[in-house]
């Protein structure tokens, strides 16, 4: 089975702190994604990556950055956390572009910024 693991299920941080959300996939997938999920807004794409050291902005990249130093690992970074970044963050991976299009999601990291 494909496994996408998000290292932290629940985090509580203070405004201005730097936050790292880590994601690891074990299926040698080329593509990795970070979404945030908010009630009534669905899933919104923050950043995605088609290859190591490669990244592309999604629909809501402001306030976030990402790092992909190894194929299996994709990190989301909040340089200076703000209260409006309180949300559920979902990491996903997929095979190379142009195949089934199926995303495999982790179980999410719920971040609260005080």
């Amino acid at each position, binding site marked *: 089975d494909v496994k996408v693991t998000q290292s932290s299920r629940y985090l509580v941080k203070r405004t201005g702190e730097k936050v790292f959300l880590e994601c690891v996939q074990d299926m040698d997938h080329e593509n990795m994604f970070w979404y945030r999920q908010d009630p009534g807004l*669905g*899933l919104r794409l923050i950043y995605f990556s088609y290859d190591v050291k490669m990244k592309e902005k999604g629909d809501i990249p402001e306030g976030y950055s990402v790092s992909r130093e190894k194929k299996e690992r994709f990190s989301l970074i909040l340089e200076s956390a703000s209260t409006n970044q309180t949300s559920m963050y979902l990491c996903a991976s997929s095979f190379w*572009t142009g195949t089934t*299009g199926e*995303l495999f999601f*982790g179980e*999410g990291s719920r971040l609260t910024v005080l």
Partner: protein
Amino acid sequence: QQQVKQSPQSLIVQKGGISIINCAYENTAFDYFPWYQQFPGKGPALLIAIRPDVSEKKEGRFTISFNKSAKQFSLHIMDSQPGDSATYFCAASNLDTDKLIFGTGTRLQVFP
């Protein structure tokens, strides 16, 4: 802006009934339309998907109906069961990018 509009926001159905969730899209370049199912505390998981070259796809009790001219697609859950209670997201993408655009979600509750 690329959008996928989903309705209703919530749905309550009795066991054995039919659940229907609707989505509409704007970008005619989309060529892949999946539905994801999410249980509480879990990430979304692919339920069923359709390409625009067919008007309907059925997998067990789950059916996608697709209307290309109207740019709409819907999920039908026949004989709904309490175990179907979850949040459902429609999505759309161009398979050249794998960049899925999700709808806002529908919380389905099926009561015995």
